[in-house]
């Protein structure tokens, strides 16, 4: 083996790498926030909607969870283009990621909702709370608190999976890497650097979620329990 590693050749590209990291964070942050909101709404519909709504959400979740993200991205990008609407690659990327992560969020939050004991709902009812108030104070908040670790893992996976959007040339870290390696012919080194960047990113995202959790879930902070 006579391969000479040359990481220095990548040094001039540090700006591009940094930009790639930023774009990936941006992309996954938008998808996470939207996915959480839509996913939670779906979970509510899934556990308390009319039969038709329940069925539709269940079908959507099954379809998404049993097909690859890559194909979903292609469908959103090319599919919508054939309908005559032109989407930018980045918009299509966000849209596909949101469609994807909404389904997973729905399943996770639904599990949380179902773990809330029926007696809790009865207690809220006896106190005169309305359905909406019960949902907000007694179901959703503790449910999300309970499944927060699972949500965190899912959103870290989403951040990593956002690399797949490079396949439609959306602007993010992997797409940046693909460009740099074809510029420099230092493919192996490029992907090592990018791999390390993703590992760091996933740590940062994890820590970020941990801190956010402590901020939002006061009880965890006070008791140091994880339920």
């Amino acid at each position, binding site marked *: 083996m006579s391969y000479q590693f040359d990481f220095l050749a990548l040094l001039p590209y540090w700006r591009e790498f940094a930009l790639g990291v930023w774009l990936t964070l941006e992309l996954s942050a938008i998808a996470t926030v939207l996915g959480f909101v839509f996913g939670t709404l779906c979970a509510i519909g899934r556990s308390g909607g009319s039969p038709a709504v329940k069925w539709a959400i269940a079908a959507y979740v099954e379809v998404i969870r049993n097909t690859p993200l890559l194909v979903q991205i292609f469908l959103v990008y090319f599919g919508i283009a054939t309908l005559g609407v032109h989407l930018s690659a980045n918009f299509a990327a966000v849209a596909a990621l949101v469609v994807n992560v909404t389904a997973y969020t729905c399943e996770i939050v639904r599990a949380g909702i179902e773990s809330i004991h029926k007696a809790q709902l009865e207690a809220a009812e006896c106190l005169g709370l*309305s359905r909406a108030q019960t949902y907000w*104070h007694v179901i959703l908040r503790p449910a999300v608190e309970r499944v927060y670790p699972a949500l965190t893992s899912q959103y870290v996976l989403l951040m990593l999976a956002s690399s797949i959007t490079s396949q439609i040339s959306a602007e993010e870290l992997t797409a940046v890497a693909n460009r740099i390696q074809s510029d420099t012919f230092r493919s192996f080194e490029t992907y090592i650097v990018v791999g390390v960047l993703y590992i760091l990113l996933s740590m940062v995202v994890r820590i970020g979620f941990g801190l956010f959790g402590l901020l939002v879930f006061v009880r965890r902070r006070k*008791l140091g329990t994880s339920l």
Partner: protein
Amino acid sequence: MSAVVRLSDVHKRFGAVTVLNGVSFEVGRGEVAAVIGQSGSGKSTALRCIDALERIEQGTIEVCGHAVHDPKLDRRALRCDVGIVFQSYNLFPHLTAEQNIMLAPTCVKSLSKADARTLARDVLARVGLAEKADHYPEQLSGGQQQRVAIARSLAMQPKLMLFDEVTSALDPQLTGEVLKVMEDLARGGMTMILVTHEMSFARKVASKIIYMHKGTVWETGPGAIIDAPQTLELRKFVGGEM
């Protein structure tokens, strides 16, 4: 004496099983009624019907002027007048004692946070837990949790309190502290219906005993009937209890 609660000929079925088979009784203002009877005789079900947690098939229930049997019942208004406490506390685990108590007054009665907090401190003091306001349920003993649950109901300033075997899950030491709170309430003039297995407590506090058997009110009368039962069933029940 005006009746706060009036049940007449109440029937309740679960599927093929008739659990309440023509239950009738009245509880007047300031009265404390103790419902006793064997397991499965329908005590909890009767209590749940009074708070509209179960829909009845036949008969009428009137509670604080609300026609509970009416499908058009305003449940929210009913729940503002009636407090209920269960055997299993059912505190909200993600909220502190104080927040548990503040929730309904702010949500249902639109009290300001500050007023609700004052109210919470007040009712917590009444159940002897003023210093536990910032504790989460899991940091409290069973007896303390149950007293917070009682305080949570009291914060809605109900005209009627229902208690369903609130001490059954507690060991004797903790039972005492909860019973004391209930006794104080009774002495303060609160109208109460309590399902209990504590015969001595029932005799001491209750102005009326309602003995239920097989889904009906089998025998009713003042506390003295425990000592001098008229029916064979109550005699057996009381004998077995003590």
